[in-house]
């Protein structure tokens, strides 16, 4: 554990969006750590701010978005001198971000491969472009590397595919291309924004395995954004549960799956479908996420929380370490010493025990 190297450290990140209806506080004090070679997952309902957080890391927020406060410290070693550098991405200029970070240090795989490739540019050019742009590679070099990349992501007939246009490929193939593009400049961090949601179930597992394999080969750090806890269980080392622009619970995969503490995490886990559920119907979390145009008073989850305390309506809970763990943190008043003891619902308990036994 001692030689884990932190390459990304987000502290108290606040982001808001200007819209016609008012200012939306999309991210409210997010803390996040990413270590070299490890995988973290950010889970939450749509609109909880998962994608916004990662877009902020890459500096590609929509034009109406603004980072109000916070830091995103990124650590890397200079390619030539090997010197250790640490910079706050929030403070970097657009030009620095574009030249240093995007594509080169941090790359991203997007949700929908059907729309994320340029329809009028050949696959080859799209894969070669970043290398030629960032590293001034010659066309021949870039072509060679692109071929290798396409083979790495499991595309047969790579030479032929280089000349194809996106519409000539299937969804799974396109996602492989998007991954190849992301890998083209040898980034240290790969952000995968729901990389499998838009794909067929049969392809999903293959793409996940591919990403894992490449991660091992290249010692990448990966951030997964997903609402699919099945994906999380399969790939992540650490899990961050996000709700209404805040991370409400974070911990190792075992801590989150076998010892969840936040009522929202309970809800998410209960809502996860599995093959042998005994319950007649799938659990859903009542209500809808709050509209972040309005100032949130107290705990944003309180209105949907069966276990809400009076203080939840008044004050935002601080973050507590779960006793006995250095990694498991929860933002909930239930963790306060004065709070009544609350256990997770019986049905969930049983389910998690069973999962543990089966070693999922």
């Amino acid at each position, binding site marked *: 554990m001692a030689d884990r190297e932190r390459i990304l450290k987000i502290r108290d990140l606040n982001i808001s969006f200007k819209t016609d209806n008012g200012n939306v506080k999309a991210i409210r004090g997010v803390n996040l750590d990413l270590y070299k070679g490890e995988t973290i997952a950010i889970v939450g309902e749509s609109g909880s701010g998962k994608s916004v957080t990662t877009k902020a890391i890459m500096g590609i927020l929509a034009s109406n978005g603004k980072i109000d406060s916070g830091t995103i410290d990124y650590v890397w070693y200079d390619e030539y001198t090997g010197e250790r550098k640490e910079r706050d991405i929030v403070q970097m200029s657009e030009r620095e971000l574009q030249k240093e970070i995007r594509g080169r240090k941090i790359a991203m795989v997007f949700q929908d491969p059907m729309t994320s490739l340029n329809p009028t540019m050949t696959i080859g050019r799209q894969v070669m472009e970043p290398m030629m742009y960032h590293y001034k590679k010659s066309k021949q070099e870039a072509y060679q590397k692109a071929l290798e990349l396409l083979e790495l992501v499991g595309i047969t007939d790579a030479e032929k595919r280089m000349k194809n246009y996106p519409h000539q490929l299937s969804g799974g193939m396109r996602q492989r291309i998007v991954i190849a593009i992301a890998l083209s400049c040898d980034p240290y961090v790969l952000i995968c924004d729901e990389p499998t949601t838009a794909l067929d179930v049969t392809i999903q597992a293959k793409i996940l395995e591919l990403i894992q394999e490449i991660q091992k080969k290249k010692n990448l750090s990966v951030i997964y954004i997903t609402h699919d806890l099945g994906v999380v269980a399969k790939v992540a080392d650490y899990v961050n549960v996000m709700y209404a622009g805040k991370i409400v619970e974070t911990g190792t995969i075992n801590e989150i799956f076998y010892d969840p503490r936040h009522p929202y995490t309970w809800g998410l886990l209960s809502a996860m479908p599995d093959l042998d559920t005994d319950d007649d119907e799938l659990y859903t979390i009542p209500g809808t996420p709050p509209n972040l145009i309005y100032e949130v008073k107290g705990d944003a989850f309180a209105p949907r929380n069966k276990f809400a305390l009076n203080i939840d309506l008044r004050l935002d809970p*601080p973050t507590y370490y779960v006793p006995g763990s250095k990694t498991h943190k929860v933002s909930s008043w239930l963790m306060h010493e004065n709070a009544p003891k609350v256990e997770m619902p019986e049905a969930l308990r049983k389910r998690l025990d069973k999962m543990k036994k089966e070693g999922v």
Partner: protein
Amino acid sequence: MEDNKFLPNDFEFVGDKRDITIDEVIPTTSAWKDALKRFCKNKGAVVAVILILIIALFAIFAPMFSEWDYAEINTSLKNIAPNGEHLFGTDSYGRDLWTRLWFGTRISLFVAVAAIIIDVVIGVTYGLISGYFGGKVDSVMQRIQEIINSIPTLVVLIILLMFMKPSLGTIIIALAFTEWIGMSRITRAQVLKVKEEEYVLASRTLGAKDFFIIFKEILPNIYSQMIIMVMMSIPNAIFYEAYLSFIGLGLPIPEASLGTLINDGYKSFLVYPYIMLIPVAIFSLLMLCFNLFGDGLRDALDPTMKER
């Protein structure tokens, strides 16, 4: 840190006094109300509607209340600049331009509306038959339409105007003849779409006749598209009427329409610019307003339809 601020009941459950299972209810409004609301948000379109109404009111009533006749020639009164008696002056025949202008606007609007009504009837019927019955009927009708459509409007108009003597009726028929294709295309596309919907299938299995299905199930679903199309066609019709009258193929003398007025004014615009500029202004305003109105309607009725 905040421990001293805790209230005594802070760590008690809120309990189930609250009804948390109910989702936030979004009040539902009818589609038309929704569209109206969206339309009213578009300021340009609202202003355009108001202007169109004002122009239409003037076109209807101004000639009635004018003491001058639109066609009465009085050479002793020719080319008078705008004044209190002749608000917009008089032309080279001594006709009062205020009266003539509004009378001409009335004719232009009438031509446009009449042409559009005819073209809706033809277009919708054609589209309905072609789309609903499909098969051979459809492909023959589509080929015919393709051929007509690939003749430029201008050539069609000229051919028709040569066959028939220039008159109000001729222009209306000529315009209707060239404008119906767009309408029939939209109708056909909608029919093809709606035909496959569950509810049409449902009513067919219940034994509904073709006629019934067309009128009860299909037509109500293509209203909004039709309205958009009509609103887009009106400025087109106004334009072609003015255009034909301007190049001398339109209404015969002494009739007045915006096109003939502009044409009259053009003959002497160096000396009496007001004779031409006033009808040009009204004509331009009408075109602009109908376009804005049409755009607004399209955005309001069919938010998915892109600006093209």
